[in-house]
C-alpha cells in the first residue's frame, strides 16, 4: 500500500502486454486511472485523485490480422489511425471515423468512450465492430469474451459492458475487430443551408435509394466568435461510397434530389471538408462540448434551443440519420446543466466531453432508469471502486477509495 496525499503526483505504470497489465493492476493499490493517448482524458466526470495512472500507450501493435476473414486482433493501446494504415495495403479498414482518430486516439480509448463518427449511420460504433475482448479486472482476473469470428452468440458479450464504461469497470487489453473493405471511391455532395432546413433536405436523401454512409449537417461557425450564429449558416454533407464505375451515377442522382444548389465536393477537397466537420465535433478552447443523442426529427429544434447554441460562439454538428449531435457551447456551468435537462426532457441522452480545466458543470444528465444495474455491475467487477473513481459521479459512485491514505 502506498500512502499518498493530494500533493503527490500519481505513480505512472507503463505495461507492455497482457501479463504486465495484470501485474500493474495487482501490484498497485487504491484508485487507478486508465490512460490512452490522452485525446479524451477529460471526458465524462472529473476523475478523483488516484494513486496510479495505467498508461496503456505501451500496449500496442497488431496481434493477428486475418485478411481472408476480415478480422484483426490488436492491443488496446494501438492508435486506430496507425492500425488503419497497417491494414490499408490489404484494402481493409476499421470502419470508424470518430473525430479524434486524427489526433492519435487508441482503440481502447475509442471503445471506452463509445466514440463514433458520421459513418455510424451504416457501420455503427465500435460496439458493432468489436467481436472479442480481453479485459483485466481489478482483482487481476483476465476475462475473455466473444472470439475471432463475426458471427458468434456464445456467452455474454462483455465487450458491450466495456463500451462506454470510461475506464471504470476494467482494463481493455486486447480487442478483436471486424473489418470492412476500404471503399474503391468515396464522394461527398454538399448543400449550404441553415440548421432549420437541414431536416427537410435529409429526409429527401433518406427516402431515396442513395444509401449514404454519412449524412451530417455542420455549422459554418467553428465557435470562435466570428461570423454568423451557428444555427444560421451551415452545410449538409452526404457521403456515398462505392465502386469507381457506379459512384458518379449515384452522386448525380443524389445531387438532383437535393436541387440545383447541391454540389459534389472535388475529390481533392473531400478530406478537408470532413476535417472541418471533425474540428466542430472536437470544439475549441473555451468550449464545453456536449455529445447528445435524440430522435433525429427532434434534434435540430433541440440543438437550436440549447443555451448559447444560436450564437457565433458555438459550433454544431448533427447526424440527421443517426440522431447523434455535438454542440461546442460557450463554457458556462449553468448553461450546460440546463442543456442536460433539455436533452433529457426530449427523451435524449447527453455526455460532457472537453471543457476548460476547472469547469464546474455536470458531466452527465439525470441517471438512467437502470442505474441500479450499473451499480450492481460495478460492484460485481470492481467492488473496491478502483477504476476511474469519479467518472460517473453522481450516478454510480461507490465509496471511492480515491487515494489511499
Amino acid at each position, binding site marked *: 500500500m502506498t500512502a499518498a496525499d493530494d500533493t503527490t503526483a500519481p505513480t505512472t505504470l507503463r505495461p507492455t502486454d497482457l501479463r504486465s497489465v495484470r501485474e500493474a493492476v495487482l501490484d498497485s493499490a487504491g484508485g487507478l486511472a486508465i490512460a490512452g493517448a490522452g485525446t479524451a482524458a477529460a471526458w465524462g466526470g472529473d476523475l478523483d485523485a488516484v494513486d496510479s495512472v495505467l498508461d496503456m500507450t505501451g500496449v500496442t501493435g497488431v496481434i493477428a490480422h486475418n485478411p481472408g476473414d476480415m478480422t484483426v486482433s490488436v492491443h488496446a493501446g494501438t492508435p486506430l489511425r496507425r492500425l488503419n494504415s497497417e491494414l490499408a495495403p490489404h484494402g481493409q479498414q476499421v470502419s470508424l471515423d470518430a473525430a479524434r482518430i486524427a489526433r492519435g486516439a487508441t482503440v481502447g480509448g475509442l471503445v471506452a468512450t463509445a466514440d463514433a463518427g458520421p459513418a455510424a449511420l451504416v457501420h455503427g460504433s465500435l460496439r458493432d465492430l468489436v467481436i472479442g475482448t480481453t479485459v483485466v*479486472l481489478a482483482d487481476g482476473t483476465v476475462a475473455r469474451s466473444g472470439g475471432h*469470428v463475426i458471427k458468434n452468440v456464445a456467452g455474454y458479450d462483455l465487450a458491450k459492458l466495456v463500451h462506454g*464504461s470510461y475506464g471504470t*469497470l476494467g482494463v481493455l487489453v486486447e480487442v478483436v475487430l471486424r473489418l470492412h473493405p476500404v471503399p474503391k471511391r468515396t464522394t461527398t455532395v454538399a448543400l449550404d443551408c441553415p440548421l432549420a432546413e437541414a431536416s427537410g433536405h435529409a429526409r429527401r436523401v433518406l427516402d431515396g435509394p442513395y444509401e449514404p454512409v454519412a449524412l451530417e449537417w455542420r455549422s459554418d461557425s467553428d465557435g470562435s466568435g466570428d461570423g454568423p450564429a451557428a444555427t444560421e449558416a451551415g452545410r449538409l454533407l452526404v457521403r456515398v461510397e462505392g465502386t469507381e464505375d457506379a459512384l458518379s451515377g449515384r452522386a448525380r442522382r443524389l445531387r438532383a434530389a437535393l436541387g440545383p444548389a447541391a454540389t459534389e465536393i472535388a475529390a481533392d477537397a473531400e478530406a478537408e471538408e470532413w476535417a472541418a466537420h471533425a474540428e466542430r465535433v472536437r470544439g475549441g478552447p473555451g468550449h464545453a462540448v456536449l455529445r447528445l443523442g435524440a430522435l433525429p426529427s427532434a434534434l435540430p429544434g433541440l440543438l437550436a434551443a440549447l443555451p448559447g447554441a444560436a450564437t457565433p460562439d458555438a459550433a454544431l454538428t448533427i447526424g440527421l440519420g443517426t440522431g447523434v449531435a455535438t454542440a461546442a457551447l460557450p463554457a458556462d456551468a449553468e448553461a450546460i446543466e440546463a442543456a442536460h435537462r433539455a436533452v433529457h426532457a426530449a427523451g435524449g441522452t447527453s455526455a460532457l466531453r472537453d471543457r476548460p480545466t476547472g469547469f464546474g458543470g455536470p458531466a452527465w444528465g439525470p441517471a438512467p432508469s437502470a442505474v441500479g444495474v*450499473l451499480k450492481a455491475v460495478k460492484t460485481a467487477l470492481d467492488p473496491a471502486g478502483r477504476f476511474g473513481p469519479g467518472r460517473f459521479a453522481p450516478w454510480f459512485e461507490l465509496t471511492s477509495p480515491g487515494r489511499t491514505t
Partner: protein
Amino acid sequence: MALEAGVRSAFARAIGAENVIDDPVRCRSYECDGLTGYRVVPELVLLPRDAEAVAAAVRMCAQHKVPFVARGAGTGLSGGALPVADGVVISLSRLKRVLEVDPVNRRAVLEPGVTNLEITAAAAPHGLYYAPDPSSQQVCTIGGNVAENSGGAHCLKYGFTTNHVLSMEVVLPDGSVVTLGGDTAEQAGPDLRGVFLGSEGTLGITTKITVRLLRTPETVRTLLADFPSVSAAGDVVSDIVAAGIVPAAVEMMDTLAIEAAEEAVHAGYTVGVPAALVVELDGPVEECDVQFEQVKAICDKHGCTRLHIAGGPQERAAIWRGRKAAFAAVGRISPDYFVQDGVVPRTRLAEVLDRIARMGRDAGLRVANVFHAGDGNLHPLVLYSAAAGETERAEKLSGEIAELCVELGGSLSGEHGIGTDKACSMPKMFGEDDLAVMHRVRGAFDPDGLCNPGKVLPTPRLCGERPGRYRPHPLEESGVIERL
C-alpha cells in the same frame, strides 16, 4: 418439490386466475422449445396480458423465490426456453401489438410477441423493413430474437439483432422495470442494452422493444451457381471478399443437402453437383450492376458448371425456397437427424468440411452441410436412424463437430444460442475465469438466480444429465418453420 398452494394462488391473484394454466396436461404444451430432445413440464404457465402483468408475475417469483423462464414462440433450437422443474413459464404470446411505426425516424416500437415478419409487414407501406431475418421469421418473435441475438441469411451485410435494437423495456428479475438503451445508439454509460441482447433470457424479460428500420434496397440480384467441388465454391467466396464486395448473402450447400432440397421443393438446383452457392447482392442499381458482373466473373474463374440468375422476384423466391427447405428436406433422405450450429473463420471452411467428412466416415454416418458461407456459420446435419440404434453415435458426432469449430478458432454457436444444449460445452470455448466473470455479470442482474437458471453457463447438475433423442417440433412437422 411442487409449488405450494399458497404460492399458486398468489400468482392467480397477481395476474388473474384466467391467465394462469395449472393443469399439468395443458402445461405439457410448454415442456420444450425447438430443441425437442429436452423436456420439462413447468408447475405453472403464466399468460400475462400486458407489461404490468409481466412485472407483477416476476415480482411474485422474486417474492416466493420461484424460478421462471420467459417464452416467445418456442422456436429456439438450443433449449433456451426449456422450463425449469418447480418453476413457472411466463409466456409473452399475448403481448403482440405493434405499438408504433415512425417512418420519419425509422423506428418501430413493438411488444415482445410480435413476430419478426410482422415488423417488416408493418414497415413495408413506408418503404422500410426490419433487417434481421432468421429462417423461422414467420413465427419467431422479436422478444425471442432479442434474447437470442438472432441473425439470418442476410446478417453478413446487415448485422444481427444487436445492431438493430435501440432500446428495450425490461422487467428485471426483482420485478422492477427499466429501460436499456434509448432513442438513438448514443447512450451515456456502459452498454447494458448490448449485454442484455443475446443473454438468452437469463437477465430479465423484455416487454417493449424499439428497433431500427432500413429503407428497402433499390434492387436485389440473386444467382445460383454450381461448382465441381466444395473448395472451388469456397474459393469463390474468398475472391468475392477479396474484391471488396460485401454481398447481402452467400449461402453454400453440399451435394447431400442439394439432393434433399431439390427432392422436396423442386427449386431448380442441380442434383449430383458437389456444391452450390447462392449469392445475393442488394443496393443502388449502379452498384449492384457493377458488382454482379464481378461476381459472375469470379464464379467462371473457379470452374462454375452452371450459373442461374434469378430473372425476377419469383425465381429469386424459388432459389431461397430451395435453400431454406434444405433442413426439413433432409428428413426425406434420412429418418432422423441432428442440426448443428457452429462457426469457423471463413478461411477454414474447406478444412472444417474435410474434417467433418472424415469424422462422419469414421462414425459411419452421413453429414449434410448447409451454411452461411460468408460468415463461416455452419449448419451440419448429422443423419442417422434411431431405429437402427445410431442415436447416441450421431449425437456424439454432432457435439464433436461443434467443438471442432472451437478448435479451429471459431465458436460453439453462430445463431442458435447456447441454451441448455451447449452449456456443458462452454468450457471448450471459455476458460474458468471467463465463465466466472460472466457469472458475476449474471449475478448483478439476477442475484437470486431465478431468471432462466441452468442456461448458457454450465452447472454441475445440468452437465450430469442426458437429453432425450431429437423429435420434430410440431411447427416443423406442419411445415411452418425450418431448422436453420
